C-alpha cells in the first residue's frame, strides 16, 4: 500500500470516485492524502479511513457521501464511525438531512379557527399604512412598470427575469448596526493615535490636531426563509430571484423549506440567476411538496440560528402559513426566532386577497412574534417588503410596532 506509484494511482482513482459522489477533491488534495498515508504508515482499514477523511473531506455535510464512497471502494464493514458516539443513546438525527423530530404530540392538528392568535404582537387589522395605495418603485421602464403591479403568480420566468434590476434596487437598505471596525470621523468617540501622530510630523512632532475615529455602521445580515411548498410555488421563484440579487450585494443567507430545510447561500453566489435558480431547485428536493413550517424553523434555529447566524439579523419569512403539523410548534419556534433576530417580517402573498384573515394554523401562531406582515405578491408590494425590513431607512410611517 505504501509503494509510491500504486499509492498515487490509488489516491487519484479514489479522488475521482469522490468527485463523482459530489465531493470537491482537487488533485492537490489527493496528493495530500497520499502524503498522509505515507506519513502515518497506515496499515489497517480504520487508519486508512481516517487519513482519507482528514485530508479529503472539508465539511460535515460531505462525511456521509464520503463514508459511502470509501466503503464501496475499500470494502469491509469494519466501519469505525460505528465505534464513535454513545451506543446506549439513541442516534442523533444526521445533521445534514432530515430536520429534527416534531414535538412529542406531533399529530397533525387541523388549522385553528378564529382563535385569539394576535395578542401582544402584531395586529393584522389596519397595521399596514398605505397597503392599498400604489408604491413607487424606482427606475422602471414602461414595460416593467406594467409588470410591476401584476401578481407574481401571473408572470412567466422571462417576465420575472426582467424585474431583476428593480429587485436589486429595492434591497439596498437593511437596518444597520455598529460594527467593531472604525473609520475616521470628526466627532468620533475615540482618539486615532496612529493618524494623530502621523499628522504631528507636519507641526514639528507636536500633536496639534487630534484625529478621531468612530465605529462604522454596517448593514445587518438578511436571512430569507422561503416556503417552496406547492401552494407557494409562483412566489418562491420571485423570492429566490430577490435572494439572488441580495446575496450579491449584501450579506444575505437563504434557506428553503417545505418538508425539510435546505441552505442555498452557496448556490446563489453563481453568476446568472437562471443557473442559480436551477441549482437551487436541484438542491431542494422537496420543491413543491407539502409544508412543515414548525420543524423547518426548529431545524434552522438549532443548526444555524443559535450559533450566531440569526443574532441581530433581519429575517424575512415567505410563506402562506399553511402548516400541516402542530401550529403550537410554529409559535414556539417563532418566539425563539423573535428573541434572536433584530426584526422578523412575514411575507404572505395571500394577504393581498380580499377579506384575508390570518387564520391558517401556522400563520395565526406566528403572528404575535412578527414585526410586520406584508403581502409582497407583486413587485410594487415588494417595495412594501423593503420598507417593512428597514422602517427607519424608508420614508413614510413605519409599519409594525
Amino acid at each position, binding site marked *: 500500500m505504501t509503494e509510491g506509484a500504486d499509492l498515487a494511482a490509488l489516491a487519484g482513482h479514489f479522488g475521482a470516485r469522490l468527485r463523482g459522489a459530489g465531493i470537491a477533491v482537487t488533485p492537490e488534495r489527493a496528493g495530500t492524502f497520499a502524503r498522509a498515508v505515507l506519513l502515518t504508515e497506515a496499515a489497517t482499514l480504520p*487508519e486508512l479511513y481516517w487519513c482519507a477523511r*482528514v485530508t479529503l473531506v*472539508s465539511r460535515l455535510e460531505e462525511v456521509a457521501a464520503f463514508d459511502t464512497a470509501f466503503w464501496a471502494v475499500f470494502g469491509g464493514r469494519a466501519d469505525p464511525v460505528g465505534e464513535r458516539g454513545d451506543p446506549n443513546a439513541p442516534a442523533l438525527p444526521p445533521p445534514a438531512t432530515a430536520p429534527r423530530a416534531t414535538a412529542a404530540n406531533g399529530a397533525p392538528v387541523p388549522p385553528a379557527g378564529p382563535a385569539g392568535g394576535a395578542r401582544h404582537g402584531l395586529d393584522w387589522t389596519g397595521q399596514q399604512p398605505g397597503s392599498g395605495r400604489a408604491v413607487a418603485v424606482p427606475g422602471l421602464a414602461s414595460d416593467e412598470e406594467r409588470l410591476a403591479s401584476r401578481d407574481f403568480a401571473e408572470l412567466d420566468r422571462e417576465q420575472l427575469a426582467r424585474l431583476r434590476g428593480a429587485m436589486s434596487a429595492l434591497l439596498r437598505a437593511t437596518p444597520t448596526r455598529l460594527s467593531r471596525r472604525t473609520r475616521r470621523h470628526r466627532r468620533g468617540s475615540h482618539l486615532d493615535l496612529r493618524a494623530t501622530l502621523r499628522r504631528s510630523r507636519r507641526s514639528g512632532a507636536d500633536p496639534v490636531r487630534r484625529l478621531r475615529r468612530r465605529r462604522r455602521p454596517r448593514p445587518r445580515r438578511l436571512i430569507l426563509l422561503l416556503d417552496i411548498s406547492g401552494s407557494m410555488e409562483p412566489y418562491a421563484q420571485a423570492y429566490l430571484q430577490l435572494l439572488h440579487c441580495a446575496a450579491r450585494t449584501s450579506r444575505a443567507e437563504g434557506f428553503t423549506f417545505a418538508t425539510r430545510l435546505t441552505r442555498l447561500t452557496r448556490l446563489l453566489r453563481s453568476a446568472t440567476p437562471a443557473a442559480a435558480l436551477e441549482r437551487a431547485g436541484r438542491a431542494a428536493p422537496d420543491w413543491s411538496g407539502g409544508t412543515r413550517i414548525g420543524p423547518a424553523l426548529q431545524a434552522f434555529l438549532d443548526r444555524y440560528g443559535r450559533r450566531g447566524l440569526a443574532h441581530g439579523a433581519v429575517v424575512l419569512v415567505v410563506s402562506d402559513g399553511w402548516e400541516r403539523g402542530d401550529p403550537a410548534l410554529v409559535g414556539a419556534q417563532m418566539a425563539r426566532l423573535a428573541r434572536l433576530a433584530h426584526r422578523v417580517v412575514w411575507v404572505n402573498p395571500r394577504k393581498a386577497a380580499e377579506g384575508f384573515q390570518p387564520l391558517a394554523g401556522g400563520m395565526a401562531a406566528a403572528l404575535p412574534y412578527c414585526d410586520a406582515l406584508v403581502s409582497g405578491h407583486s413587485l410594487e408590494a415588494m417595495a412594501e417588503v423593503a420598507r417593512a425590513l428597514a422602517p427607519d431607512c424608508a420614508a413614510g410611517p413605519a409599519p409594525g410596532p
Partner: protein
Amino acid sequence: MTDLRQRVPGVEPLRLALDAVDYLADTGLATALYCAVGLAQPLLLEGEAGVGKTEAAKALAQVLDTRLVRLQCYEGIDAAEALYEWNYPRQLLGIRLAEAGGAALRDEDLFGEAYLIERPLLAALRHPGPRPAVLLVDEVDRADDEFEAFLLELLGEATVTIPELGTVRAAHPPLVILTSNRTRDLHDALKRRCLYHWIDYPSLERAVAIVRRRVPGSTRPLVEQAARAVARLRALDLQKPPGIAETINWVAALELLGVETLDAAAAERTLGSILKYREDQELAASTGLAALVGD
C-alpha cells in the same frame, strides 16, 4: 521537523502522549493532529460547542512542549489587533523625553523593538523555536471574509512585512489549528488548504474517563451516572445539547455540593450547570429527572 518527528513518531504515540497530558483523543482526532504536524498543514477543527476543540490545540502544544499562541477572532478584527501595532503613547513620550533631554532622535529610534506591540500572529511567526509554536485561531468563522483572506496569505507565506522594520520570515512556521462553530461557511480557498476534522461527542466510556481526569477526586459511580444522564439528555430534543465541558462543570458542581449518588433532587439543584435554556430545563423536568438520572 525531525525534532517533532522524534517527539511524536506516529499516530498511536501521539494519542498516548495526549493521554498523558489529560486530553483523551480518539484515533480520528489523533490522526488529524498527527497529519497536521507531519505534513505542516493547517488543521480545521469543527464540532458542537464544548467538545474540546480549543483544548485539543492546548494539549498539542503541551505534548510538543512548545508555546501556544491563541488568537481569538471576533467580528471586525483587523491587522492591528491580530498582527502588530506601534505603541503610540510611548512613542509620543519618547519624543518628549528626547526633546527635554536635548538628545537627537532618529526615525529608527521610534520604530524599534521597544515600541512594537506584538500581537498573536506576529508572536507565532517570531517564535524562536526550537520547535514551532502552535497557533490557535479560535472561532475563525466570527471574523469577516477580508480577515480570512489576510490570514490565508499570511499562513501560506509564513512571512509578514512591517514597513518600518522590514520583512519577518518565520524560522519555524507555526503549526496552525483553526476552530469554527459554523456560524457561516468559510471560504473554499481556506478550506482547501486545511486538513479537516469533525469532533464528535465522545462515547460513554471516553466521557467518563475525560471527566474523571478533569475533576480530581470525583468518584467513578457518580461520574458514570452523570455521563449516562448527559447521554440521555442529548437524546432529548434540546436547544443546546450538553457537551463534555458542561458534563465536567456538572460533576464539579455535584462534587462541590458533596453529592455522592446522583438522584432527581441533586439533579434539580444543579440543573443550571448543564442546561442553559429555560425551555431545555422544563423539557428535562417534564421528561422526568428521576428517569434521566436513574441506572
